């Protein structure tokens, strides 16, 4: 029974309003006012505008439908292929991490998780610096020449790089929670290794593998930055095509139609995913992990462990290493530069960021982009905490209202960034002049993460702690100040860093709504990358390195603050 509520609901007990507001069922509505109004104005109304546009008569032309079908087909194709490849790398990796103990394991695990948190432009820039025509391999080894940027391979490789962490996390957890006695029992009953896998391990892991597959597919399906930057507009997925149809070859009704197709698909996959997740959480019971993990013993195990470790290190480390390396090394002539090119170490790409050149891609010194990004990120933090806190408070003690609002507030997660951008353009057109709009878009993306980081922390404070404090003489206000607040400090920091990181790296929505004179770091990187000349490329590398370092610091902070079991996907 929920005694906290009992205490508060009893009208004989006078309580200070601040606590009763957040505890009592009826006053939950007050908590919802801000977050809901925000979502109404910046999400549901824009969504409605896109929907309205979709059902205008000039949307359903044969031409539009044909094009939409074609784009959808390719989107599914590349997502399916990417997912398959991700599983191919991720499943053995998950097994490696869940079953074996080896030197540098925690470092390697961290390395594989980093890409998942990195902004798409950083990943794209990293692969460009590694394998691209102006990248390390091709510049340093002139004998080797291949097309990478602008191929399907580039997209697939980047997707695998991005999402392997999901498979490792989800399937790895499932493997390590498997009861090792089941395997032993199967063996004692006469099953060989193959049969143990076929009849025992695989069936038990199936829900986890399915969940990972669906989630990876969802991310590959809605991926934007990687495809635009590494594939180019030749590889038009739904996201890229929406972007093109808004900014480059305007056809808003087609863009709206694609948005709706995209939304329908992501919702379908999300529903499937939640179904699978429910099933898989029922199946696996927590168990001591120690009993499962051992050092590789046989030769075969040693070969698997060391070989696969090497593969993972190469695949995950080199792009991340190539990027900062390339940002300090001149490997090609700058644009318009004549005569002898000084190859080798340089800090020009960084110093150039502070120079406002006429004829450069910006009207302002590129470093402005960093300042803009930091400013937007700061505003996003404030805004998303302001909106996320009341929502998380309400969700931590869910009533009937919360059952309805919980999925609603998570909905922006399922809609893509580019779509949010289109919605903003359609509904808030005149506001676009204002650079203030960008943090609102970022808040929309960050809000679900902020709420998910805060809510479990709030809910995890046992009611007994508050009761114990009350029995020791703490008034409700003092309970809030002495118990809730200090315990939530870490969760609040986690949420803030989440919002900050998301805002820093946000690419899709920003690309659509940001003003040319107020670029953010990702937008600046995109523009630099699309320009010829060594200096522009170098500056892209330099900015991407800055963004990568900022993100890495954020990841470290999140890991430091995070309470166990919160803020996971």
């Amino acid at each position, binding site marked *: *029974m929920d*005694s*906290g509520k*009992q*205490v508060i609901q*009893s009208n*004989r*007990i*006078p*309580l200070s309003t601040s606590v009763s507001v957040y505890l009592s069922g009826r006053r939950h509505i007050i908590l919802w006012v801000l977050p809901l109004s925000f979502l109404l104005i910046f999400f549901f109304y824009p969504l409605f505008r896109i929907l309205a546009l979709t059902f205008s008569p000039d949307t359903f032309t044969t031409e539009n439908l044909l094009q939409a079908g074609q784009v959808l087909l390719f989107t599914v194709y590349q997502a399916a292929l990417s997912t398959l490849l991700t599983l191919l790398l991720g499943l053995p990796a998950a097994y490696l991490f869940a079953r074996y103990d080896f030197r540098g394991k925690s470092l390697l695990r961290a390395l594989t998780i980093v890409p998942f948190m990195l902004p798409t432009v950083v990943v794209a820039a990293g692969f460009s610096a590694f394998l691209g025509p102006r990248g390390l391999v091709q510049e340093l080894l002139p004998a080797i020449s291949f097309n990478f940027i602008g191929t399907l391979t580039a997209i697939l490789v980047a997707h695998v790089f991005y999402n392997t962490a999901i498979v490792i996390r989800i399937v790895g957890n499932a493997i390590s929670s498997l009861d090792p006695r089941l395997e032993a029992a199967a063996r004692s009953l006469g099953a060989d290794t193959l049969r143990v896998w076929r009849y025992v391990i695989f069936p038990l892991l199936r829900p986890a593998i399915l969940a990972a597959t669906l989630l990876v597919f969802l991310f590959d399906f809605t991926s934007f930055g990687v495809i635009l930057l590494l594939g180019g507009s030749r590889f038009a997925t739904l996201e890229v095509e929406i972007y093109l149809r808004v900014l480059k070859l305007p056809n808003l009704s087609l863009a709206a139609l694609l948005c709706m197709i995209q939304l329908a698909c992501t919702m379908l996959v999300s529903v499937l995913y939640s179904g699978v997740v429910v099933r898989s959480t029922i199946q696996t019971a927590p168990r001591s992990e120690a009993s499962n993990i051992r050092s590789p013993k046989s030769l075969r195990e040693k070969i698997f462990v060391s070989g696969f470790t090497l593969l993972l290190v190469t695949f995950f480390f080199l792009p991340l290493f190539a990027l900062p390396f390339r940002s300090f090394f001149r490997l090609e002539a700058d644009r318009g530069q004549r005569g002898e090119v000084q190859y080798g170490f340089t800090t020009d790409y960084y110093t150039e960021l502070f120079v406002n050149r006429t004829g450069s891609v910006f009207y302002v010194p590129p470093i402005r982009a960093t300042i803009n990004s930091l400013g937007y990120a700061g505003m996003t933090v404030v805004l998303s905490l302001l909106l996320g806190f009341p929502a998380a408070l309400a969700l931590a003690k869910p009533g009937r209202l919360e059952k309805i609002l919980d999925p609603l507030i998570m909905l922006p997660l399922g809609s893509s960034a580019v779509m949010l951008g289109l919605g903003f353009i359609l509904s808030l057109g005149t506001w676009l002049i204002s650079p203030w709009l960008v943090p609102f878009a970022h808040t929309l993306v960050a809000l679900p993460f902020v709420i998910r980081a805060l809510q479990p922390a709030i809910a995890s404070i*046992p009611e*007994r*702690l508050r*009761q*114990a*404090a*009350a*029995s*020791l*003489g*703490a*008034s*409700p206000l*003092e*309970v809030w100040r*002495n*118990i809730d607040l*200090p*315990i939530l400090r870490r969760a609040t920091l986690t949420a803030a860093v989440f919002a900050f990181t998301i805002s820093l790296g946000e690419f899709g929505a920003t690309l659509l709504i940001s003003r040319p004179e107020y670029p953010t770091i990702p937008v600046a990187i995109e523009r630099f990358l699309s320009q010829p000349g060594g200096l522009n490329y170098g500056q892209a590398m330099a900015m991407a390195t800055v963004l990568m370092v900022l993100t890495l610091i954020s990841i470290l902070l999140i890991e430091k603050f995070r309470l166990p079991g919160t803020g996971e996907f």
Partner: protein
Amino acid sequence: MLAVNHLSKSYEGRLLLDDISFTLDAGETICLLGASGSGKSTLLRIIAGLESADSGSVSFDGVDLTSIPPHLRDFGLVFQDYALFPHLSVYDNVAFGLKMRRLPQDQISQSVANALEMVNLVGFDKRQVTELSGGEQQRVALARALATRPRLLMFDEPLGALDRALREGLLHELRMILHQTQIPSIYVTHDQEEAFTIADRVLILHDGKIVCQGTPAEVWSHPGSTFVAGFLGLGNLIKGEIIGKDGDGDWSVASSTGDFTVHCGGEHQMGDIVHLLARPLPAESEPNILRGTVTDVIFQQDRFKVLLENDLYLYLQKPARVGERIEVPVKVECLS
């Protein structure tokens, strides 16, 4: 001091507490004993002010507490899982209530030191509560409740999460502390050994009602109902029919396990169904005899538990042989 008057409480249509009344005197420790779901925790929380009753009242020193919120009641509460504040050190946990009372710093540190000394945790001030063992955490929880010198202490299954050896040790310490401080206290548990060890008076709760109360010895010797006798495991429960009355006013009762002569309070008629309690210990001068064939003998440190084929059991000093037919005089009393 504490008076509970006709408390009733229902939740989702189920009656949790049904017209509960009792009093607690100065320096007294009472124990609410009952199975889970008997309503004992709910009763405690109502007294603490963490829940409200549907009807009835709680008063302390004649003052009705109904409208007094928990933090102003000055009742200490020790939880089963301790509810220590994970973000505070041992010192800050124990000092919490004192800080809430805005006592001067030196007085706080003095009281914390006293409380920690009382629970044998001297030198633990700076430790984090999360790194303590279960027993140490329990001591901190006790120190935290004691530090403010509350006018009433309440324990909600405080030793439930600890292993047996630790539980016995702590129970005796707690008994000493309660005697020493003379703070009246209410102790809730489902464990009768704990209850009988700690309590001056035991109240047995069943389905929201107090079905039996008295000192441990009184409760043990006069359970008063089949439920209590069964719950406490006092002996063999036998259902019988009254078949006669002898000169001393004792009744003759026939049952499937033999005939008995018992003293029953209240009015009875021939043919009435009565419930009897046959204690399992041999009692030489008793007129009633339990007899049967031995089916099993279990060694229990200072005695043997002997099971008979008719589901009766006895505690004997010497082991019987399986298959042997035995006759043992025991005390049989009337429960209804």
